[in-house]
């Protein structure tokens, strides 16, 4: 999945900083813009790929939910169902030199990057073959080989850490870009703004992706944020921002292309606010009493990211039912195999408790 499809035509980044701007005058939404519906032309292959990748995440997460219910997975476990288009669209715009960091709702990110479903699942069951040898669990997984920097349980922490990743990229003068994901709730952490300032000051190649799924646990954005247009949160630092329909994988891809281009060309950070929605509770232990069933159903039936792509494929005659069925079957096999692998992998030895505390004692 890490292979990036050919570039969609990217919109020209707007001029965001005018030297002539009078000091003290607020930067208005010149730096921040709501992005119109995508005009990106995508090939059928590419759309099929998105479909497949999103479906993998959906089915994987459904299975995780079941396994949690069966007691095979413990601790906190946050599902990504509903938000699949965000990581799939973004990842498609990345290349082998780019890297990713996120919070605890991380299963989808890892699958989109191309990390092995069976090893992600084995981490969830706390087994030896998991990405962190079982010691991290759902919230704390990493892959150096895939340039995935975690999996972090402290809300907001990926932002300064990700900014540091981008600092290193710039220092090493490579082409790489860091994609740093965090939530609407995390966007109220102070460390976010300290990071924004330094990222723009030092023109660091980082895309701040705010996954605005409308809730931080039970607190809706409206009850937590004085201003709810989170793509404008970088304005006072002159960081350009875009608001994107995060349920539409093509819109995400188009915005990602623009942002990657912006960062690669040395212009500094960009903020992408992805308007999205999580269908399940915050974690497995959340009955989600703070929102109505109608609200959830409305998104599910009218804006589901996978259904949207499915309809596009069928209506545009880019694929037929048989083709989609074959993809469904392929995904089912992968998920079943991952679940089996994760239950068969041995538990870590108790001696593992003492390893990896320091590199060497």
């Amino acid at each position, binding site marked *: 999945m890490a292979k990036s499809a050919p570039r969609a035509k990217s919109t020209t980044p707007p001029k965001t900083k005018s030297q002539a701007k009078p000091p003290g005058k607020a930067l208005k939404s010149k730096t921040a813009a709501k992005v119109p519906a995508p005009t990106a032309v995508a090939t059928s292959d590419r759309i099929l790929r998105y479909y497949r990748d999103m479906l993998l995440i959906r089915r994987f997460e459904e299975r995780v939910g079941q396994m949690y219910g069966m007691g095979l997975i413990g601790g906190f476990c946050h599902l990504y169902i509903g938000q699949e288009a965000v990581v799939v669209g973004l990842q498609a715009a990345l290349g082998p030199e780019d890297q990713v960091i996120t919070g605890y709702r991380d299963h989808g990110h890892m699958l989109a990057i191309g990390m092995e479903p069976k090893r992600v699942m084995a981490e969830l069951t706390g087994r030896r073959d998991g990405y962190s040898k079982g010691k991290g669990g759902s919230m704390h997984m990493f892959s150096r080989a895939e340039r995935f920097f975690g999996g972090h349980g402290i809300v907001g922490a990926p932002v300064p850490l990700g900014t540091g990743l981008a600092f290193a990229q710039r220092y090493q003068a490579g082409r790489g870009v860091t994609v740093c994901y965090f939530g609407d709730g995390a966007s109220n952490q102070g460390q976010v703004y300290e990071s924004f300032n330094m990222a723009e000051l030092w023109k660091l190649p980082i895309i701040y992706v705010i996954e605005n799924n409308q809730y931080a*646990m039970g607190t809706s954005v409206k009850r937590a944020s004085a201003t709810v247009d989170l793509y404008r949160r970088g304005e006072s630092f002159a960081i350009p921002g875009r608001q994107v329909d995060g349920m539409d994988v093509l819109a995400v891809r188009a915005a990602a292309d623009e942002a990657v281009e912006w960062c690669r060309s040395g212009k500094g950070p960009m903020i992408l606010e992805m308007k999205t929605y999580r269908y399940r509770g915050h974690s497995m232990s959340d009955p989600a009493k703070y929102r109505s069933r109608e609200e959830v159903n409305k998104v599910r039936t009218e804006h589901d990211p996978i259904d949207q792509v499915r309809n596009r494929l069928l209506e545009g005659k880019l694929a037929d039912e048989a083709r989609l069925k074959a993809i469904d079957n392929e995904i089912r096999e992968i998920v079943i195999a991952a679940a089996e692998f994760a239950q068969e992998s041995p538990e870590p030895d108790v001696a593992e*408790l003492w390893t990896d505390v320091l590199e060497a004692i």
Partner: protein
Amino acid sequence: MSAAAEMVAEVTYRDACRMALRDALVRDTRVFLMGEDVGHYGGCYAVSKGLLEEFGPERIRDTPLSESGFTGIGIGAAMNGMRPIVEIMTVNFALLALDQIVNNAATIRHMSGGQFGVPLVIRMATGAGRQLAAQHSHSLEGWFAHVPGLKVLAPATIEDARGMLWTAIEDPDPVLIFEHVMLYNSGGPLAAGAGAVPIDKAAIRRAGQNVSLITYGGSLPKALKAAEELAGQGIEAEVVDLRTLRPLDDETICASVAKTRRAVIVDEGWCSGSLAAEISARIMEKVFWSLDAPVARVCSAEVPIPYPEHLEQAALPQVPAIVAAAKGVVG
């Protein structure tokens, strides 16, 4: 004891915490509860469930994810006549507010020559046992117990969960209350008239004369269980529940050790630089000549707490280790 006080109800530790909050909100209109998901969600450990409906959003205030910010706001409000209760979801996230707590709450009285106090209560969950791994499971209360200007409480019983909060609110200085996550579901009887309890005294939870098991919070049930087992083997352990981690009740600790002549400290924090280390030093300073054996400690393994259940349990103080340590010092 009045008739009302004698009536007993079966409640959980969580219920007792909620009763204490409710009582404080009813008694004093200056009291308000502030924190992440304390309102609509009902608290991340369901402690404040129902309080929003009863007291409204002005007094049960959901905050953004801004631990440093809202803890600072609590400090400011306390300096300005309020009696805030700030809830931080867990001690792990309190580290984002460490600067507020250590540099501001703990110092303002001293720095202002006594002009301003910070009558603030900060509650938070602590401890491991729920497979939440290394960013949600640590026991860092000992760090806060290091700091002059703070009081640090660790209610381990239903009575203390019910009674410590009110005393803390009446206290003119910042008080931190640590609620161990594994205690919330524990149940027990609570007298209907149960109320405020002192916050400056340790308690003897079980009397004995052969060895003192000194502990607090989530380790108390383990120490009591160990004492039970030891009794079966002819060793009578005295269990000291610290209750207050700062200031430590040296008198009760030392009186127990002077009697039993042996001490085992059980502390879910890591051994190095721990509360257990401090208590051990005090025993050495004050009752060294009464000791028949070196002080022993049972602490968490010095590793980040891992995710798999068997590794997590292997990292924590457990009954067999406490029993073994006690037998070791009894000889």
